[in-house]
């Protein structure tokens, strides 16, 4: 199993900046609806959250994470689905080939079935290794980037607002 988890996995708990317990569940407090987005003061449209996401989506760092993810997942998914469909089709339409004995009572069908188990275990291991080594760190960095940009945006908005009311 995945033993390289490190101590960090358990520590991101209640102090997680995204843990937003109050926004969850309607009818529990007075205000069920989330507050509507405040219009930016000064008539100039401030960048909304969606702009941040568009910007991050276009960034090279995100494109890299996405292409690494797709570069593994697309061929692997195509591969195991093809292998599985081939197995099912062979089992139903070519029982003659599947019944051919290999050694003792073990025949092609049994080997193919056990091969499905084996390939599943191997792909699971390969995927989790690939994600751990090639994606996790970059994804976490991006998560922080988004968080910081949102925080800056919030600060600017508050500053503008307090300036607006002070006038």
């Amino acid at each position, binding site marked *: 199993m995945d033993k390289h988890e490190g101590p960090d996995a358990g520590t991101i708990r209640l102090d997680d900046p995204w843990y937003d317990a109050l926004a*969850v569940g309607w009818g529990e407090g007075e205000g069920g609806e989330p507050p509507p987005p405040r219009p930016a003061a000064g008539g100039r449209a401030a960048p909304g959250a*969606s702009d941040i996401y*568009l910007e991050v989506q276009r960034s090279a760092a995100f494109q890299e994470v*996405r292409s690494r993810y797709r570069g593994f997942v697309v061929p692997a*998914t195509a591969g195991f689905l093809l292998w599985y469909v081939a197995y*099912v089709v062979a089992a139903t339409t070519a029982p003659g080939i599947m019944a051919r004995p290999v050694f003792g*009572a073990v025949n092609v069908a049994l080997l193919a*079935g056990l091969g499905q188990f084996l390939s599943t275990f191997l792909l*699971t291991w390969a995927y989790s290794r690939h994600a751990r080594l090639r994606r*996790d760190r970059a994804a976490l960095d991006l998560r922080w980037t988004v968080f910081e940009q949102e925080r800056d945006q919030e600060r600017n908005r508050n500053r503008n607002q307090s300036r607006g009311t002070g006038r």
Partner: protein
Amino acid sequence: MTTEHQTLALILFSLFIAVTLGITTWVSRNRHGSAEEFYVGGRLFSPMENGFAIAGDYMSAASFLGISGLIALFGYDGLLYSVGFLVAWLVVLFLVAELVRNCGRFTLADVVAARMSERPVRIAAGASSVTVSVLYLVAQMVGAGSLVGLLLGDSGTAARTLTVIGVGALMVVYVSFGGMRATTWIQIVKAVLLMGGAVTLTVLVLLRFHGDFDQLLTSAAERSGHGRRFLSPGLKYGADWTSRFDFMSLGLALVLGTAGLPHILSRFYTVPTARAARRSVVWAIALIGGFYLMTIVLGFGAAALVGPDEVRASNASGNTAVPLLAAFLGGGAGTTGGAVLFAFVAAIAFATILAVVAGITLASSASVAHDLYASLKRRHARQRSEVAVARVAAVGIGAVAIALGLLAQDLNVAFLVGLAFAVAASANLPVLLYSLFWRGFTTRGAVWSVYGGLVPAVVLVVLSPVVSGSPESLFPGVSFQFFPLQNPGLVSIPLGFLAGWLGTVTSAEEPGEAKYAETEVRSLTGAGAV
């Protein structure tokens, strides 16, 4: 079965109930009853805990009783099931687990609704999730019924009904009082028990054959009366082209259905991060894969030691093969050893059913309260807390599942689960994958894809030989059977994908570029995830 069996099984089972009720009270002390707490246990489980709970949620009566029974009766064709059930986890691991954890909050609909106009999407996804859950629940109820039938013999019709009702009532208690936290711990306990039981029986079977797997296969083939054909595909699904297509349909449903099961999706929300979700799936795959490897030994062992005829005599669809095998391994039906092992296995099977039933009930009550009720309630209706609605929903869903479970008493459990998988794969998976990966997907596409998979799947089941027109069907007296296959997957899954595509290309709505950017960035990085 002897009274000794019954008493022992009842004692063990009562012990499990006592322990799980204890867990429920323990975890629900000073609980603050928030939705976060009720649906996902505060998102504080560790990957290993969640991995065991996923395994406990997934390895239902269908796996333990159904698959081994099918192997005992039909040899290799039963094994085809377990391959599908396992390979399906790669779809979950690669395409769903992490992304859903990052994008959603409690249910499948959360992921889709984040990009779309919320109400219609929530109603559609909620309706299909409830349908899948009810079908899956019926299978568990049938499993409970056949176990009791075995324990009490033919005299137990009333007891069978009572048990099914009792199982339903218990699960409502667990779910309403304990929420996700209690449900998870029940599943962990059950997964440990189930793995323990399976390992014990597997070792005993292999010891009988002196560790010689080859000899086990040979004796199974001899005892089955089919000879070598027992070890190769074709006994159940090879007679004609209808049954061959039936299996292809089932195979497709199994491999694509898991990723659309509401109670599995909701498990990914119980861990703090996407990375933890991934690691829980890795744990789950190890446990589930190991378990299915053992069911192969158990199934062939039951064929070799008990014999298909005796299995069939006890339960026509093979659901009781493993308990019979346990009694045999313990020294035979009349002996103390046999009684102990039999009771042990029967109690584990009960525990399995209860735990799975609790998981599904919780997930479907979340769909009702969080998706359906929240979208359909009148704006000025009396304000009720979401958790209270979910508790009421659990009772309602339990009642429906009990009623249907009593009706479907004589069908094979693994087969019934196959139907639930087909509906999940047709209605839930297309919309989920499109939302996560297709930039141009629109609200109309989402709604069409859910109904375009759900309606054909359900209609085809109603028109299939399962419901009418054959001696084994639900209503053998009438015939409105127009669809030849028992499993609708081969037709309804492509229809679900097609409907989603069609709805999208015909809709006038401009796909939201920014919304997709948000979904994509969030799903892959975890930004903004709860």
